């Protein structure tokens, strides 16, 4: 086990800088998920930790040792690839033992490690099969098994579940979580799926366009996002954003009026600098923070377009008077039967025009 420390890590492809000075400190035994949209640099960061991409600037240390110029095999890491990267001409057993056999590891030790990995992942009965004769989930287990036999200090996962169907993804997610508990090894996991990030991570690193936007525990990011990007990325369905402007201010609070809804005024306590009256702001409301009219800080009239019933919960797809789309979460039993309804805003977040959180 080891910690991983990225200090001002920069990656350039030619003249294009794709990672702009990332600082991330991953503790020993921690499960950290890099999450962000396509092209945000999360896989590049992971490949730089693995040594599969050169580091253009900054420093990466694993277990306190700077590894910028250390060969991938000597970094004490093992990686699970998105496409599994299994050797198609070898059996499962050969896939697991290949690396150890090639490096002259003692046969008894190789057998012990392969047997242990197979038992952990429950693939002992598949050992003679070739990858083409395995299901997606089984292939993923073998790929993880190949990482386990290396007995690494750090596991790296590059979108390992993105090729699986929805049901299998949930199943494998639980398996990986169980594996982390069992092995206690440091794990770095890359995904674009915020649900995976929320369910697996001890801490999440949210990336956008090569910048680290925020690092924190899943619920901290959910409850206390630093900016509009993190607020929108974490949570499903995503947070609703409604334009507004400040109509009143006190020493430690502001009153916000929502666009197109003169009667909807929200009072927000602020501990930082209070913006000027008239400043444009964005109010963020999570779908579950809409309540029955009169229950919250302010009421908002909306027109419902579509209702999705998911059993216990329903999602109301609606528009404000100003034409902004909002998603409202409701208990199935409390879904209104009219298209024009008034909902309350029980909790909201305030962002300035640049998208930074006003606290």
């Amino acid at each position: 086990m080891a910690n991983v420390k990225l200090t001002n890590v920069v990656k350039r492809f030619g003249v294009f800088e794709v990672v702009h000075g990332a600082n991330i400190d991953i503790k020993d035994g921690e499960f950290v998920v890099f999450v962000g949209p396509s092209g945000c640099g999360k896989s590049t960061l992971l490949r730089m930790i693995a040594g599969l991409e050169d580091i253009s600037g900054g420093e990466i240390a694993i277990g306190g040792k700077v590894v910028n110029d250390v060969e991938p095999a000597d970094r004490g890491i093992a990686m699970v690839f998105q496409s599994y990267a299994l050797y198609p001409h070898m059996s499962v057993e050969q896939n697991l033992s290949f690396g150890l056999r090639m490096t002259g590891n003692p046969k008894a030790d190789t057998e012990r490690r392969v047997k242990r990995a197979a038992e952990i992942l429950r693939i002992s009965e598949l050992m003679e099969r070739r990858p083409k004769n395995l299901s997606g989930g089984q292939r993923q287990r073998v790929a993880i098994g190949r990482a386990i036999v290396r007995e690494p200090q750090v596991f790296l996962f590059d979108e390992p579940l993105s090729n699986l169907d929805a049901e299998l993804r949930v199943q494998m997610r639980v398996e990986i979580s169980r594996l982390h508990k069992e092995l206690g090894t440091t794990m770095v996991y890359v995904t674009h799926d915020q649900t995976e990030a929320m369910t697996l991570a001890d801490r999440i690193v949210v990336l956008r366009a090569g910048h680290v936007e925020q690092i924190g525990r899943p619920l901290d990011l959910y409850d206390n996002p630093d900016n509009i990007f993190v607020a929108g990325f974490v949570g499903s369905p995503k947070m609703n954003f409604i334009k507004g402007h400040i109509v009143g201010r006190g020493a430690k609070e502001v009153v916000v009026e929502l666009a197109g809804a003169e009667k909807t005024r929200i009072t927000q306590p602020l501990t930082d600098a209070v913006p000027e009256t008239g400043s444009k702001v964005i109010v963020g409301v999570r779908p579950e923070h809409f309540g029955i009219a009169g229950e919250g800080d302010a009421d908002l009239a909306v027109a419902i377009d579509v209702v999705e019933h998911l059993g216990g919960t329903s999602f109301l797809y609606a528009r404000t008077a100003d034409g902004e789309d909002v998603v409202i979460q409701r208990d199935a039993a409390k879904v209104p039967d009219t298209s024009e309804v008034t909902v309350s805003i029980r909790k909201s977040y305030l962002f300035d025009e640049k998208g930074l959180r006003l606290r």
Partner: protein
Amino acid sequence: MRYRNATAYRFLTPYLLIFAIFWVWPIISSFMISFQATRTVPWRFAPGFNWGRLIGDPAFFNALKNTLLILVIQVPVMIALAMVMAVLLNSPLLKARGLYRFAFFAPVVVGEVAYSAVFRLMFSLDFGIVNKLLNTVGLPKIDWFSNVTPAMALIMIAVTWRWAGYNAIILLAGMQSIPEDVYEAATLDRVSKLKQFFFITLPLLKPVIVFCAVLSIIGTMQLFTEPFLITERGGPGGGTETLGLLLYRQGFRSLNFGYASAVAYTMAGLAIAITLVQLWLTREAK
């Protein structure tokens, strides 16, 4: 559905007619001719005449021996060389890759007569650059055209020069279809580049190598141009005569079409047999 099929076949009819007349019929016709005595006019049906002669004909066995010798030596050497070329062409370190790919492929598009003339010149006893180079490094001149062993070597060198690049391009295409992350996984497994080649690239390329080998075997069984043009009709004294050349000599010089047809069918049969053996030896384990 039946109507749609009929329409399709009506559109195909012109092609199928030409295919039947110029492809299917010659195959059937030559097979029938192989059972006829064609040295005298009129031809007469004599099943044992050509096939019987084949079994005891020293010229046939000489041509068969030469063809198989070229096959056994030249094909493996050429495929090994093509593999080395493909690995080099696949290297990310190589600059101007497109230029090299074209250069390696170019011999295939060069006219056979032109390249044969250049080879004759290059290997000429007194004026050839090859002998001059041999002299420069202190080796004696070789009379490539008057002795059997150098003449056979010359044929093999020429065929290898012409087709190695072609095979290299096919192997390169196969290599590029192997996903990069398999190699990355091996790199993380501390597997050296050399071991990656022998334990990952070669096994995964096996179907492509077999394809190249089958094409080369068929090509060598039909070998004609090089012994005809470079070593002047299989010279010296039939030392480089191949089955293809024997067929030509019998069919179009002696106008003995029956015997030429028997030789043609023997060539095709041998190519099929060797290919089947090879496919069987390299079959995928279940």
